[in-house]
């Protein structure tokens, strides 16, 4: 389209409306995010009284100091890193080979297996039978309860399968096979090196899931030493309390409760930032990969 088409008056009005509507959307989404950042470095009393409404007031890093001194948060952080790394590795080790096999046209049984996997998207045993199974397997209060029940997601296997089908040329596979290349070698030496984008997308999808997940921990873990960050956050943000390990136990019950509330109030906004920090840091670089993943998935269901 070479020539520039002149905009009519109606189109100009539409443009102005459009730009302003998007601006409103931008502000509505952005405001709470900025507020949290500002509140995390502001004097809590000014935040609570409403004097702080956009930019930090009464600048203080006291909240962050308390967060970094808190054993519980540290332990939760380390646990979460561990669950995320281990969980994501397991996810990738299960998802990628399976997706590759299902992508191969000469794989006898691919239709049946795909159907078997996809069926679980719509039918499941539900919460209680799954819980009883995990219990029977002896996984309660172990690391495995955090990584095995979500070892793979059907949707992600489908996305990978589509990616392999679209990007790995059949000719390449055929010629490699002629050279006497085994399927295993082909997957490791040819398919994986060509699949960096989808591996990145998968690692991110699964990784974010592990990082943000709390429900498995809630039902399968009772040992506080195993708690991931999100469960610690739940105590601080939702139940508004800190366990006694974080505060001075020798205080009388009433004052202890009071100080716990205070403590929770001061670190409230800080922990939101700290817990989301890894995602905030990688997000700008990886946003397009995320988007790519969704789009590959939307190509064909």
């Amino acid at each position, binding site marked *: 389209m070479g020539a520039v088409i002149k905009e009519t008056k109606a189109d100009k009005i539409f443009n102005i409306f459009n730009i302003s509507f*998007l601006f409103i959307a931008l502000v509505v989404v952005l405001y709470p995010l900025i507020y949290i950042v500002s509140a995390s470095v502001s004097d809590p009393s000014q935040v609570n009284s409403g004097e702080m409404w956009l930019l930090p007031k009464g600048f203080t890093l006291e909240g962050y100091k308390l967060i970094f001194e808190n054993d519980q948060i540290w332990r939760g952080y380390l646990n979460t890193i561990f669950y995320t790394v281990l969980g994501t590795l397991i996810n990738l080790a299960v998802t990628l080979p399976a997706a590759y096999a299902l992508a191969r046209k000469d794989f006898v049984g691919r239709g049946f297996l795909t159907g078997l996997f996809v069926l*679980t998207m719509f039918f499941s045993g539900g919460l209680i039978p799954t819980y009883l199974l995990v219990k029977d397997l002896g996984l309660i209060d172990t690391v495995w309860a955090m990584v095995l029940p979500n070892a793979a997601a059907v949707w992600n296997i489908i996305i990978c399968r589509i990616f392999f089908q679209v990007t790995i040329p059949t000719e390449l596979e055929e010629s490699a096979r002629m050279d006497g290349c085994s399927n295993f070698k082909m997957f490791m030496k040819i398919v994986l090196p060509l699949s960096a984008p989808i591996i990145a997308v998968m690692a991110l999808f699964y990784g974010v899931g592990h990082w*943000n997940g709390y429900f498995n921990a809630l*039902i399968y873990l009772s040992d506080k030493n195993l708690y991931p960050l999100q469960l610690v956050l739940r105590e601080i943000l939702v139940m508004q309390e800190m366990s006694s390990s974080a505060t001075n136990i020798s205080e009388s019950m009433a004052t202890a409760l009071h100080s716990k509330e205070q403590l929770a109030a001061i670190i409230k906004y800080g922990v939101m930032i700290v817990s*989301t920090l890894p995602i905030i840091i990688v997000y700008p670089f990886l946003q397009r990969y995320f988007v790519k993943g969704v789009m590959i998935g939307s190509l064909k269901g």
Partner: protein
Amino acid sequence: MSTSTATVLQQEEEKPKSNVPKEKKKKPKKNRKILENWQLYLFVLPALLYFVIFHYIPMYGLQIAFKDFIPALGIWGSEWVGFEHFARFFDSYYFWNLLKNTLSINVYELVVGFPLPIILALLLNEVKDGIYKKSVQTVTYAPHFISVVVMAGMIIAFLSPATGIVNHFIELLGFEPIRFLADPDWFKSVFVLSGVWQNTGWGTIIYLAALAGVDMQQHEAAIVDGASRLQRILYINIPALVPTMVILLILNIGNFLAVGFEKILLLQNPLNLESSNVIATFVYTAGLLEAQYSFAAAVGLFNAIINAILLVVVNQIAKKTSETSLW
């Protein structure tokens, strides 16, 4: 690479040729394929084990919904009681309230949450690629990555009657502060609108991808015919989105009664329970907190059956009316 493989290819071609004529029949060929690709079976094995163990065994375990499950006797050893647990659930005083909450929260979410990503995508599509478009996208996608726990924490902090920023604004405008989370009338709006804030931007991605696929020639022809932007959106872009909309609608409805359960659980408190208790949270409370395994499994199964029926019905309707469907 191409030359070396090509030469090897020629050498290798000699050997298999002698075998080919013998394998005209289908069956041996299939068997040979299986043998040749035995490693591929090893590739799917972990996934197969995972789905069998963590998805199909629980489906088998669902039979406890029809039994009086006693852990010591195991799933198989426990006694059959038929539909007793279902009957107890249907007769309970909370049944209609649970059903009403579950349905109304989901319908509310669908009515408000479904069209917004479409509208946002249509509007974003009209902006030229550049910093403005990019920043709107980057910012609106971002909340999607906030965890449910942090999201619940934000809601609780922002909506607090005494210290929350929302109520400070309400007071500034001269109104009384609202106890959002202690008021059953407000719970559903809080739940749905916070979800809109978190997921609308992310939801635009699929629609933007679909819009990128619209043929530019159609737009050019429409411009020549004097169509305005609004007209082009109405008559070109929206029809182009229909298949995507239908598929997403079916998928949404397939998950109808499970959506948002984790967030509801986090925002629930005794004061808003009247409107926040849904079937999924009830299963959690009855099953895991009160250890009524069989009863909770029966309630969960009831939920799943409604889901499956909705999915099939909506899929059929979609098939008939728009010729788009999941199967």
